[in-house]
């Protein structure tokens, strides 16, 4: 048999899965667990649409093998809202219209959460530099950057 057993946590829920070693974390989330928030935009780490957190660190899930998540914790966009309440980053993107078609939005939100953990009050340049690994084709980034600036501002207040 090709498949390998792994045990990991996804959005705080323990998961036991049998996976082909070739399966990426992205495809594991989307096809095995029906968590389709993470998207495949490029398959090789150039667009960030597949960004999730692995042990609290933002990664391109298209470049992580599912088998590598054995014993680890994965957080996806679906795991952000707690008890029906949106995460402040989600709120900010919503309120400040930091999206149009929305395909890149989960990736941006996960990348933003990681950014804010590192820089709670990022400048515009810090935001752009830290989000350069997430491509958006609809917005020109303007309202995305403003959404992140708004969170930082809210936190200060």
């Amino acid at each position, binding site marked *: 048999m090709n498949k390998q057993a792994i045990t990991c946590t996804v959005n705080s829920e323990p998961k036991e899965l049998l996976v082909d070693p070739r399966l990426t974390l992205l495809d594991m989330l989307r096809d095995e667990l029906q968590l*389709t928030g993470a998207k495949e935009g490029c398959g090789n780490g*150039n667009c960030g649409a597949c960004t999730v957190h692995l042990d609290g660190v933002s990664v391109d899930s298209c470049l992580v093998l599912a088998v590598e998540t054995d014993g680890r914790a994965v957080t*996806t966009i679906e795991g952000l809202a707690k008890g029906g309440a949106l995460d402040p980053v989600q709120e900010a993107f919503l*309120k400040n219209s930091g999206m*149009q078609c929305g*395909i890149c939005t989960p990736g941006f939100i996960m990348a933003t959460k990681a950014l804010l953990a590192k820089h709670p009050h990022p400048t515009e340049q810090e*935001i752009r530099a830290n989000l350069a690994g*997430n491509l958006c084709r609809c*917005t020109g*980034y303007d309202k995305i950057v403003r959404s992140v600036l708004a969170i930082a501002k809210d936190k200060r207040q």
Partner: protein
Amino acid sequence: MTTTEERRAAIGQRLPKVDGLDRVTGKAAYGADIHLPGMLHGKLLHSPHAHAVIKSIDASQALKLPGVMAVITATDFPELGKEAAISGSSEYSIGAANLRRLWMAKEKALFSGHPVAAVAATDPNIAEQALALIKVDYEVLPWVRDIDEAIKPTSPLIHEDLYTHTLGELPKQPSNIAQHVEIGNGDAEAAFRDSDVVIENEYETQRVHQGYIEPQASAALVDPSGQVTVWTTIQGVHWARFDLASVLNIPLGKLRVIPMEIGGAFGGKVYPTLEPLCILLSKKTGRPVKMVLSREEVLRMTGPTSGSIVKIKTGCMRDGTLTGFAVKLWMDSGSFPGSPVAGATLAGFSVYQWKAFHIDGYDVLTNKVRVQAYRGPGAPQACFAMEQQMELMAAKIGMNPLEMRIKNISKEGDPMTHGRPHLKVGFKEVLEQVQRHPAWTSPMKGPWRGRGVSCGMWMGGTGNSSAHLTVNADGSVAVVVGSVDLTGTRTAFAQIAADEFRIPVEKVHVTVGDTDQTGYTDTSGGSRITYSMGTAVHRACMEAIEKLKVVAAAQLKVSAADVTYKDGLFRTSSGQSLTFEQAAQTSMRRGEGPISSTGVARRLKHAPTFGAHVADVEVDPETGKVTLLNYTVFQDVGRAVNPTQVEGQMQGGAVQGIGWALFEDYVYDEKGNIRNASLLDYRMPTALDLPMIGAEIVEVPAGDGPFGVRGCGEVPIIPPISAIANAIANATGVRIKETPFTPERVFWALKKARKI
């Protein structure tokens, strides 16, 4: 009980997207997110050759692989009916026979990446394995690389039976020139002779991809009764249904196309791509089949916009009056006819008024993937040439380039290149707004820095749009539209309905319907949806109000004629009133039944739109790298239903143009394969490449339609490549006449001009 606060006008409000919640939680379902029980995975086999005869395809070994359920090739397509037609009657319509051949190569592979076979298997890994087992016998032919090669009389023919479509004498020999468009007025040569200044140049742009972050993805199920259901990411479900039914000989009524959320399209997802293959595979296997393209496949086999060569001569008088222009422009359409030469000749060259002009436009075939629309198709290429010529002439006569534009800008009633008059337009108003604005007036300091301006127009689409509406018993409203939401139109419709009824936006729920649920609606795109479908929604609202008036009248025991509706209240002359909610409740209680209405918009007048952009750049003379310091978009949107969403369109379109200007290009090897078919080397702008994009909304209401709305999605891509070229010229004294302005290109241009 709603308050006066909630009854204020919703039009013009900066509201967040009504469908934003699904996007920030990852719940929105796009094409690749669909999961169906028993689903098979489809994969494509692509031609590795840019031009080859397909002598045979042997899939027998692939079919033996356990898990492989079916393989299809061009022979699996049914015979094309003589009358088969497809949607879209513009010059860049591809035609049924060619669309089918684009989907799957028939007899010849016409570009590297052309699908030659498709496999359905139980597992994507097995499908991939199966592809390697399909044996294709090719006879490789010489390939046609670009426009220059294609138009040579000695060029290999891409289609043996293609004769240039032209107004004059039909050619006796076939060629790679699909169409010659010729349009003119007066004697351009005489105009040049009488001009004080005549400038002639040649400009070139490259193919650039729409760059939607979501690759194409579709699924289809053909059930035993022959009923076909398609789930797909596409710009218009009714067009898709019509095209699929037409080409695959499926009765319209047996085909249902369900739209998934769409992750960016910009014109590139107007026509079906994977749907027909999923349908044929499902038919063969009896199971649902899903197919998703990889990014590499997107770049290899889905249409970018055309590259162009524009030879242009323009003249003016010393006082800045434009005299005449002559243009020869070639656009490459790829493997089948249909480059946007028309868009170029109309929108590209109708911005200013000239005494005389002549345009020869050529639609040229090459062995590359056939192009698709990309926001304002044809116009950026034309403007790249014209807007630089304007700068050169202004510099020659020592006139402020903005003033020169204002002096010659088209107004309502002035003729466009095709002779018909401009409608009510805000061209001058936008340019005057630029003139007053700090983006233009603030000083530019520092060496190697420069500011450029450019402008462009787009006609704006109209088309057919259908909407229907139900007023629920609690006064909430459900709107169902036949148009796919590309840009946030759900929100616009919610605002239009909320505004018309004077109810809170939260009480309006907008659904994008499938082909069974909605009336025929032309594809989304062409800057037409807020305008055209907005009009349809508005009409549905008005019909609902009339019906509610009847209900209110019965309840209040007056005649319907005595009832007016204003500010959320049905009033009688005697001072009785019912709120919107009360009237809705009454309708159900009185047994009048539900309130349901429809709205259709067709043949509206165009609502042309105009934008002017100001770009500030800094050029690094040691490397040629161009950094964008500031960028501001000025645009006449008629009426901004939601200014935040409108700004988003302006900014997003501008940034696509910025990518076109600075980074994006296809690199081919000597055999016709794309060497940069990945987002690593097909470089789209990242957040770090850009400043904030200023967005200044100008409102000159359009003639037709509610509230004077104009479509706003396309025009923002038209000025950037020329605005940045103009800025670089001002920063360095060197004019770059070919996109993209990569550091290397700029570097050598500076060196050649001895600026460094």
